[in-house]
């Protein structure tokens, strides 16, 4: 028995997880795709009826979808890049030896522990244009007051700030784990060769951290791309749909306009976009690892 396990360890170890996941996602993917091919509008009260690609044709030709698509990409890139860069920087700082390091680490994790709904609402309190604390701070340091979530051009950066505030800790702790497992030899060798800290970082640490950064960056990208709770709690997609990402658009189509067929088509498209981008990033990671 033990021998059997050992010989087939590859599948013995991987199969339970694989089988469980397949069982749990076949239904959602299948059902969403099936719904997306139907005319299913609760307002008409009629049962779902196949209309094949009509939902997709309608969505892909609607300017609202493309506007929402643009917003989603802008929000996702902004937040992902900020989180990855900040996360690595903070991890490097926390990787140094200093007193109170444990406390600092715990402090860093705090925002990540809060429910996104609560975080969103709490920041809406800070962002209130006339009596919120953010504009008070802006004024105190001589900056002009901002409109934050109440104007179309500032709403995405304002929400992205909150996303970064809450989720960077996740990047930090993954980077810390990655840093702690880096071999010391190349770093010491570089120091002996007379490289300064900045050179060591760019020539030695960063290349070795790249796989970790790709992994966590991809995870953050995926989560932010389909993030819902935070934006919903803060603006519900407003003002004037300026923060209506694809996921919110799908939600609104289903639960405000009761068009479940169209909503499922949007969800399927979101899934496909994320899938394609993930495969591209995974391939980039693979190529990068092969190059090294």
């Amino acid at each position: 028995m033990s021998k059997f396990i050992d010989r087939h360890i590859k599948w013995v170890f991987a199969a339970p997880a694989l089988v469980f996941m397949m069982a749990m996602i076949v239904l959602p993917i299948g059902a969403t795709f099936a719904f997306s091919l139907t005319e299913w509008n609760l307002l008409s009260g009629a049962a779902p009826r196949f209309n094949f690609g009509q939902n997709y044709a309608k969505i892909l030709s609607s300017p609202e979808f493309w506007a929402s698509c643009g917003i989603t990409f802008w929000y996702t890139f902004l937040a992902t890049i900020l989180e990855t860069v900040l996360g690595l920087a903070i991890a490097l700082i926390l990787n140094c030896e200093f007193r109170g390091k444990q406390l600092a680490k715990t402090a860093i994790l705090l925002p990540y522990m809060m429910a996104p709904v609560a975080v969103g609402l709490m920041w809406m309190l800070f962002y209130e244009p006339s009596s919120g604390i953010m504009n008070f701070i802006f004024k105190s340091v001589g900056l002009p007051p901002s409109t934050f979530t109440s104007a179309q051009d500032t709403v995405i950066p304002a929400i992205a700030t909150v996303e970064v505030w809450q989720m960077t800790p996740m990047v930090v702790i993954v980077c810390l784990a990655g840093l702690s497992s880096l071999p010391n030899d190349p770093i010491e060798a570089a120091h002996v060769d007379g490289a300064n800290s900045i050179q060591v970082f760019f020539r030695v640490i960063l290349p070795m951290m790249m796989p970790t950064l790709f992994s966590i960056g991809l995870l953050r990208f995926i989560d932010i791309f389909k993030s819902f709770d935070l934006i919903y709690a803060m603006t519900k997609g407003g003002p004037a749909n300026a923060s209506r990402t694809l996921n919110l658009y799908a939600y609104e189509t289903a639960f405000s306009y009761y068009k479940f067929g169209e909503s499922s088509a949007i969800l399927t498209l979101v899934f496909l976009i994320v899938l394609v981008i993930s495969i591209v990033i995974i391939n980039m990671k693979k190529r990068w690892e092969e190059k090294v």
Partner: protein
Amino acid sequence: MKKVISLLCAGSMMLGLAACGQTTPSGGASSAAGSQAEKPYAGTTLRVVSMTAQVSDGIQEYLSDFEDKTGIKVNLELYGESELRQKTTTEFLSGSSTIDVFLLSPLQDMAPYSKNGWIEPLDTYLDDPELNWSDFTAPKEQITLSGTDSIGCLPLYSSVQLMYYRTDLFEQKGLTPPTNYEELLQVCEKLNDPSNNLYAIACRGEKIALTSQFSPFLFGYGGSYIKDGKSNIASAESVDAIKFYGRLLGKYGPPGILTTGYSQMTQLFNSGTVAMAIDANALYATLTDKAESAYYDKVGVAPIPEGPTGRQSYKQVVWGSSIYSGSKNKDAAWEFMKFVAGSDVAAYITPKGMPSFRSSIWNDSRVKDAMSADMVKAYSVINESDTTNPYGLPRLTSVTEARDAIGEAVVYSIETKGEGKEIEAKAKTAADKVDQLLKNSNEYGDKYSY
């Protein structure tokens, strides 16, 4: 004290029932058997999903009384507004929901929920004398199952429009609240004092936000947003209303009126910039909040002035309560429905800015004690008045776009103090846009289904 009152109420209700001793068709009247000890529904458990607002506070306040009286055990689940909608829709779609009673926003949910057969028609229950259905003044078209005459929900509270004014300024000038549009203009003329940074009146001027608050003027002149499935905003009556609204705000409104939405309204009134404001009843709580306003004790309330075609405040049924058609405990659910729409909960929520549709509530001592006399009077006047403007908004799929188009014409009118040469042309443009929106979503003309 509240407990004592509610017990007395419950007691008197019981006595009254025992005295009349009738039975109702639904079987709900088995509770009328009289003696409290019987607890007709002992052992029944109801699952109720509701939303987290003061109406649920009212339910919780009296829930144990209800449970004691009927023997029903109520599991009350509370959710935010959109989560409630998501939860009920998902459960009902699956067909295996265990919900018995749920709260809904008729404006948004009645059509999809009733067309899918999720709502139990209440007609056979309404004769129950314990309910006293004739006491309710809700606009019927908002609470009937779509496309039928059957009542689908019991209306819980309304949103209406009221006029707020500064009692100190009115006293100083010896004025009384205006009751019609001419008086409104006269009063404004007397109050307006721009050199001292005091303006007579504020109403909403922000393009999209203004639609609902402009509607009483629109209907007050005999106009409307949509008529027979076509835009009616360019009709002579509608244009009169646009001109009047423009004149009122252009001449007597504060600078920056064009950016005024809900929250700016409060700010203008609370900072003492305006002497009058016409807006939703929800504004009252903030205007009279000591923590928010320097004039919290100088706020008078009056019904909105009457137009040539009457007092046309919108009267929205904000929340209603319904029985799920798949409920296995419909009789017990009805007991709970009567309780939710009953006078205890109504007396609890009404002073908190959620006026009940029960006419009798305005004579209830709990309401009279908790509210100022002018507020009670204003509410009851609005509640009794018939209106052709129940919704306050154009009814079509692309509501926001339509509000935007109509708002543009009204804004032009305000900018030109109601005298602009292009008001008719702008109204026509707006009408064309709305017609196009109706056509786009296949709702134009005969196909209009609201």
